[in-house]
């Protein structure tokens, strides 16, 4: 060993070599320059993304709408030009000649609907939505602003196939309900970096300030072939904003009041229940360094007893542009929350009150997320990305202040090397290796540590100009130290066919898996009359997912998407209540979820009226016991209409989820479907936007989970100031 070169020296040597490889390709190259403008106003557009298709080259426009892409090999290319609020434009036949500069003037049409935006999550590299082999929905920040979402999960409600049981997200019925949202089957990522907590594999929707978010991509169906465990139901990737060329400062303040319950007998307090939120964001680019800072505070009395909430967020992002178009992104976010913890209501005639012994119960979370990603374009056909990340997550209750061993901090350390290689115009390889090290501990499930090593490869092969196929494979080797070892292979096959302009037919088959969390295997607790029994024999769950979909654009003003899907599960992990009321996580031997999903969006009357809707029908079955899987509504739909009148807009949204057929906790309780109406209005003048909203306007009373009331009617007033916005 003394004579061998340490591994880090190999890595350093490789990096240096790659750094100097780039110039070797730069002989006899051309360059592309141009300006991008708004087609109506003829004003230059800063921050527009320009990609050279079938290569890994691209850039963004500067403050004056201009761009330059250097060192392009000679040839004829297609450009893809995209920006939020504008229709994505493809420009074919752009010729690059050796040693010369090709100049372009590009005009973008403003649009409310983005028919074909650029997405990065389905294949781990940028591609147009129409080229994806998987069902993907994009929620951009304009959409979030119009819906006046002050919680990230609120923004995802209109997405077809997505349903929430409290904070538990389910995509196409993949998940039911689990306390603390533990063992998520949906992988949450920030800029492609996984952020499930290392101990409970929980999603914390509030972990980053909302003003940090540029857009959110929701990939439906098994994502384990690229993302491994926890992505078996899908992936939600939050893409944070990049610091723009100009200084930009945003403040959003918001205040709301809760109405009283509809029934007099349910009114439990004379106090006015309320909530307030403040968000601040600042960004600016200083030469090659872009800086983005965020801060958020949210306080609420809650709408029922012991439902108060207090949350702090802060974040910072650095984007450092380095020579040869390489760049380093560093992002960190911090969240601290204190919130009342409800097990269940006092009784159905006092549903907004909790039993006396639960009145002081509290949950605490402290989460710090950090990542650094270095993007190195080695040539026009080879890109490398190096990622280092760390997630610190500490959970607690009011008791853990004096008992620090009750919940120990969970530590998740990750690193990844990813390469994108385009050997020729017909092939795109994505490959890499991910490593993750997790440490967790609690008196409820003891101390555990483990690691996962996961090499993966995917090829996208363009068979014809309108037909492409994707083959992917990932191997996950998971070791829980001194306990067990498990290895899984997750393959995937996808096809994308575009028979006509505006029509995309896609089909996917892929496998997914999820290793049981230490919480699910080892939890042993007796809390407020709820007993939890450990199950060390819990096996990893596995699935195969099939998806067939068609997406049809209707000119530039709308689109329609229809999908049929089926997921077959083996050893699905679900919490089960035994006949004495104790909870244990068990394997459902065989389950199947199949369904239909459709979404449509159309603009009318010169884009003043925007109509959208989504519908999902599910058949979620526990085949072994011939029962419906718990906490999965068969039918959900969402209808939304928006009227844009100059600087003002008005929006109405109706959300429906059918009555849940099967539950675990209290099956004899009355259950009702969910019917929620939202009414919103906003007007923009100067740099200010005034927002008004009435949420749950019909004051409809419902439960996602037995004996926990959903949010009652509340009214919100918000003011957004955006200075320096382009």
């Amino acid at each position: 060993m003394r004579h061998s070169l340490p591994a880090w020296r190999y890595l350093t040597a490789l990096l240096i070599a790659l750094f100097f490889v780039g110039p070797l390709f730069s002989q006899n190259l051309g360059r592309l320059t141009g300006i991008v403008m708004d087609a109506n106003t003829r004003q230059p557009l800063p921050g527009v993304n320009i990609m050279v298709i079938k290569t890994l080259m691209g850039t963004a426009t500067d403050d004056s709408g201009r761009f330059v892409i250097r060192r392009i090999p000679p040839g004829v290319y297609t450009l893809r030009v995209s920006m939020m609020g504008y229709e994505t434009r493809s420009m074919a036949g752009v010729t690059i000649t050796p040693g010369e500069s090709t100049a372009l003037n590009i005009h973008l049409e403003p649009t409310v609907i983005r028919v074909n935006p650029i997405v990065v999550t389905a294949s781990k590299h940028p591609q147009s939505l129409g080229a994806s082999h998987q069902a993907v929905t994009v929620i951009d920040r304009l959409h979030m602003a119009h819906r006046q979402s002050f919680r990230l999960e609120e923004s995802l409600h209109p997405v077809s196939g997505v349903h929430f049981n409290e904070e538990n997200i389910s995509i196409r019925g993949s998940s039911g309900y689990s306390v603390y949202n533990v063992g998520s089957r949906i992988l949450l990522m920030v800029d492609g970096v996984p952020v499930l907590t290392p101990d409970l594999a929980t999603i914390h929707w509030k972990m980053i300030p909302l003003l940090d978010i540029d857009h959110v991509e929701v990939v439906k169906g098994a994502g384990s072939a690229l993302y491994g465990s926890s992505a078996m139901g899908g992936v939600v990737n939050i893409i944070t904003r990049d610091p723009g060329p100009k200084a930009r400062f945003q403040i959003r303040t918001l205040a709301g009041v809760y109405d009283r319950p509809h029934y007099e007998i349910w009114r439990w307090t004379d106090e006015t229940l309320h909530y307030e939120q403040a968000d601040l964001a600042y960004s600016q680019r200083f030469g090659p360094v872009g800086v983005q800072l965020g801060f958020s505070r949210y306080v609420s009395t809650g709408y029922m007893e012991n439902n108060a909430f207090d949350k702090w967020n802060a974040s910072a992002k650095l984007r450092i542009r380095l020579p040869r178009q390489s760049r380093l992104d560093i992002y960190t976010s911090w969240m601290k929350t204190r919130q009342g913890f409800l097990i269940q209501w006092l009784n159905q005639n006092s549903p907004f009150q909790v039993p006396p012994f639960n009145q002081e119960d509290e949950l605490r979370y402290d989460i710090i997320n950090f990542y650094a990603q270095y993007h190195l374009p080695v040539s026009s056909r080879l890109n490398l990305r190096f990622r280092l990340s760390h997630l610190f997550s500490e959970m607690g209750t009011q008791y853990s202040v004096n008992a620090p061993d009750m919940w120990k901090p969970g530590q998740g350390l990750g690193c990844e090397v990813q390469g994108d290689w385009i050997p020729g115009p017909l092939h795109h390889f994505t490959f890499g290796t991910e490593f993750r090290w997790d440490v967790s501990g609690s008196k409820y499930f003891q101390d555990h540590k483990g690691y996962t090593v996961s090499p993966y490869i995917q090829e996208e092969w363009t068979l014809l100009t309108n037909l492409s196929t994707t083959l992917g494979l990932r191997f996950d080797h998971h070791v829980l130290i001194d306990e067990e070892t498990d290895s899984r292979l997750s393959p995937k096959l996808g096809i994308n066919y575009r028979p006509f302009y505006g029509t995309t037919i896609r089909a996917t088959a892929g496998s997914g898996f999820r290793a049981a969390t230490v919480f699910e295997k080892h939890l042993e607790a007796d809390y407020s009359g709820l007993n939890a029994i450990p199950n060390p024999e819990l096996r990893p769950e596995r699935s195969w997912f099939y998806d067939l979909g068609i997406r049809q654009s209707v000119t530039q003003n709308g689109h329609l998407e229809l999908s049929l899907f089926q997921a077959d599960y083996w050893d699905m992990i679900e919490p089960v209540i035994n006949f004495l009321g104790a909870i244990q996580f068990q394997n459902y031997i065989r389950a199947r979820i199949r369904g239909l999903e459709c979404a449509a969006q159309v603009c009318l009357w010169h884009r003043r009226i925007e109509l959208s809707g989504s519908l999902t029908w599910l058949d979620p079955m526990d085949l072994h016991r011939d029962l419906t899987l718990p906490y999965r509504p068969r039918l959900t739909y969402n209808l939304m209409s928006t009227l844009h009148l100059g600087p003002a807009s008005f929006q109405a949204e109706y959300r429906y989820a059918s009555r849940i057929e099967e539950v675990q906790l209290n099956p004899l309780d009355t259950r009702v479907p969910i019917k929620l109406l939202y009414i919103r209005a906003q007007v923009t003048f100067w740099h200010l936007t005034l927002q008004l909203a009435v949420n749950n306007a019909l004051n409809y009373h419902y439960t996602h989970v037995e004996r926990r009331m959903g949010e009652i009617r509340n009214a919100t007033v918000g003011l957004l100031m955006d200075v320096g916005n382009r």
Partner: protein
Amino acid sequence: MGQTVSRKKYRWFLYGMGLWLCILLTYLHCNIDHGLEPIQSKIGGKIFFQGDVPPRTDEVRVAVIKDFPPRAINELFFSDQITVAEDTVAWETYMPSGRYAAVVVVWKEKKQSWNLSDIIGLYGGTFVGDMLIPTYLPVTIPDETSVIDTVDIQANLNRVNRDAAIEGTVTFTGQWPENTGIVGIGAFVDTPEPGNLIDYFLKNVALDYTVPPFVPEFTYRLRVASSFGTLKYISVLWIDASFDLTSIKDIGFYRDPENPDLPGSVPLTYNMTTSGIDITVNFDEF
């Protein structure tokens, strides 16, 4: 964009929107569905207590059972706590309308979970001594405003005044079934009819369901009320990994030392522990 639409059309559009909004609001005002509602219908009556209140009493409640026997404890509606201060106590609880198969009174011991052996009263049931005769009456709440106040129940606290005990060892042979969920040891005042879950409920007077699965043997101690006189059946009960009560199986019983083909009886003595009540379970036999 705005110039392509005339001012007149724009005004008519706003009128139309306003009219549509008025119609919508009127409709909603008249037909709003508010979802979950308070429960107005009630069920209640009197509980006639017999016997002394056991010192380890945590609480007593009435449990209303939709379908009898229930598959799990979460298929019961529990009343608020009943105060056991007098011989006759009125009880009442809000219940949705419908037909309910049985109403029972259950006792809970301090620091213990609810236990099937702690049923101390049954609507329609009577007592011969401390033995509960398992006849039960259904109750129907006809509509959402009905109040049924005639559900009177006799409850015998002597059943849980556990002043005697039995103990022994359960030996497991053969291969444990992989789908084992819960294993328990039950003491019965009469032999339950195989497959009759109601018998297992109401003839059981003590149950320990904490036997860990996959062990070779387990030493148990069951506390029982000496007022029953004799335990006629002591058995090991098995429930599969689904934890569904209907999967219950009798996998071994205490055998009469003189006639091993028959269940053995155990006489109970006040303040005494009867030892040597050993049971062997051979998984290969079932």
